[in-house]
């Protein structure tokens, strides 16, 4: 399900669209500008809320950097850009050099040593990485690479939606639909004149979100002792 479809579904669930109404074809529709705006905000808010609390499968990505040969010009091979959807690395040792089955770790977070290494022009096989402070997300390698090699890494990606065709970050349609139900609850509160602070205390929101999280779990763990033995209806 994409972002537009989710907004359409919210408008249908909240009975904005009924009878022989047509759902808006895009976010620029002049028929429901306010409702569309509230719906879009509901979707984005709830995605943010969800990924802030949980790791959802859609966040996992594998990226890669290809090192450059710093021989003769070390500075040109010191730092490497990360993907535009990069949020943070997954795990403590994300980088893997496949040829050597080599992993490297983040350089010890000691500013003094780090600054020393930033000025280090040692060239050779990288044995650590560090976060390069810059306006864009990038890393630096120690030592500076002396050959072209492909390194892969796992990271958590940005999964927020913004464009109409962006896919909601859920693995199944059922999860996506439940997410839309959650957003519909959000929509109704705001549409009725409520505030954002009302969202987190609303029982409908809590219920919809817990169902969604349940759906996203890979295992069906009992949530309380003896639950399954008392009643199948619980």
């Amino acid at each position, binding site marked *: 399900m994409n972002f537009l479809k989710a907004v359409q579904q919210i408008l249908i669930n909240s009975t*904005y*669209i*009924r*009878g*022989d*109404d*047509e759902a808006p074809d895009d976010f620029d529709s*002049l*028929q*429901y*500008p*306010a*409702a*569309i*705006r*509230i719906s879009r905000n509901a979707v984005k808010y709830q995605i943010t809320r969800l990924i802030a609390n949980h790791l959802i499968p859609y966040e996992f990505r594998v990226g890669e950097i290809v090192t450059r040969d710093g021989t003769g010009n070390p500075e040109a091979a010191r730092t490497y850009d990360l993907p535009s959807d990069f949020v943070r690395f997954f795990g403590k040792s994300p980088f893997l050099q496949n040829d050597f089955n080599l992993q490297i770790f983040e350089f010890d977070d000691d500013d003094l040593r780090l600054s020393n290494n930033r000025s280090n022009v040692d060239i050779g096989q990288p044995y650590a990485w560090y976060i390069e402070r810059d306006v864009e997300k990038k890393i630096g390698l120690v030592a500076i690479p002396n050959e072209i090699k492909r390194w892969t890494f796992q990271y958590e990606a940005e999964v927020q939606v913004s464009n109409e065709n962006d896919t909601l970050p859920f693995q199944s349609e059922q999860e996506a639909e439940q997410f839309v139900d959650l957003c519909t609850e959000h929509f109704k509160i*705001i*549409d*009725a*004149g*409520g505030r954002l602070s009302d969202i987190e205390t609303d029982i409908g929101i809590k219920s919809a979100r817990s169902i969604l999280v349940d759906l996203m779990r890979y295992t069906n763990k009992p949530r309380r002792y003896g639950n399954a033995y008392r009643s199948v209806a619980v």
Partner: protein
Amino acid sequence: MKLTFSGGINENDETVIQPDECISGFNFELGFGDSHKSPRPPVDLKGIAPNSVETTGILQLVRRDDTETTLSVNGAKAYLWDGSSSYTEQGTDFFNAGSLPRAVSWDLDQYIVISDLNKLTPLSQWDGTTLITQPHNISGVTDLYASYAIEHLNRIWLFNIRADTSELPHVILASDFETPTIFNTGARGTAQDPNSVVTENDAFFLTVPDLRWINGVVLFNKQLVISTRLGRLYKLVGTDSTNFNFVDYYAASDATGVESIANIGNDVAYMKRGGNIERLSDTQRSGDVDTDDISRFIKTSVKNLQDSITVYDQKNQKVFFFVKDKILVFFKDMIGRGGEGGQYSPWSIYETDSANLDASAFNFNTKVAVYIRIPGTKIYSVYFGDPDGGIRDLNGILDGDNGALIRVERTSRLFELGKKKNSVTGRIQYRRKLKTDLSIFFDYAETYGLTNVVVPLKGPTSGGDYYNTDSFYNADNYYNTRVLGGEDIATVGFSPSGSGTAVRIITQLSVLNDFQIDQIDL
């Protein structure tokens, strides 16, 4: 809150305006028992004179055999017009430039007598085949001109005349009994001159008592009523030449214009100095009081108007006041119709959408408007001339104003929204007559925001069965034949941006054909 459209334009303070009136708007219709919004009829261009000179007269003769002939006067030329594209000049440059000819029927001899509001062309007659100057038999006078002519009590009466170069705007001529070719400017009616030698059936003249210019004549309720410019109303009393006279009817009419006074069926309407429009019955009952002006609902629109051409559309029960760039439309059947807050305004305004208009932007500015029989038919309509020699039908049936979009707009009064909400939502009930877009503007109080939505309205359902092939409801089932096309009720929602404690709602459409919006729920 439910917004309907029962009332017309009410330009008084918003606190006294009823919810289903509007504070401004144009090109919508009203009707007794109607609460929906629909557009005025389109204006059809019926024909254009060969010389493309402004139409200043539309003259029609209907003979006893129920056939009619119609003349279009364009500058100096008079054309026999078939109601479409056929124009045949009658005479040669018969009219003097600037004439505003008007017709009155003389059925005894089956011709029309043609006067001229501007008194530039002598009194004339048209018998269906020949256009000639009307004989008058006045000794010493070659050309007799009259601004107004009317048939009453077996005579032709002329008002506001000119005898050759002698201007006599206060004089009334009455023809010989059943002989409209004999007038007399030398013999005064006995009622005004006891020494006069006229006998009962003789032609005679009278003067209007206040000696002002006569600026209107109307027959109403078996009475002949005349108006003097910024003066009084008088009515004719008497039975023959020995006792006919004009006596005061209403002393402070202050009527302005030259064609603003008209019989509107059960009453007489006229425009006063300052632009107010009055009804004679109200004046008789209440005197000169503002609260009885029929134009009291549209004070702003009539303010300082100087003139109008007033035409009564008997078939559709409307009175049209052609003023500069628009028509003020008075819906007679709305008189007395009211909601909980009193009487609804019976007024709409017709305008043209200049931006989309065809090349001849007439804007309802016309020199002639008449209620006549549509040539070649037995149906009546209001025809008017345009600046380019055209004649247009106010009750048209084609698409738009000769193909141009008709913009329809209403602005509601201010509605309280109560608690300030994050958004306003609404739903429209309409008929699936026309596929078009409805724009609704929301003028919010306090936030001073003006936002809008564009709501698509669907057109008629396709022919045949709505639930048909491959559906649960199929042929031979209960749900089969559709209701009448174009009457299908549909609803559609909308959700505008912005919010406030109160809002005015402006509905706007530009259409070529009829539509119907029943109500808007907010």
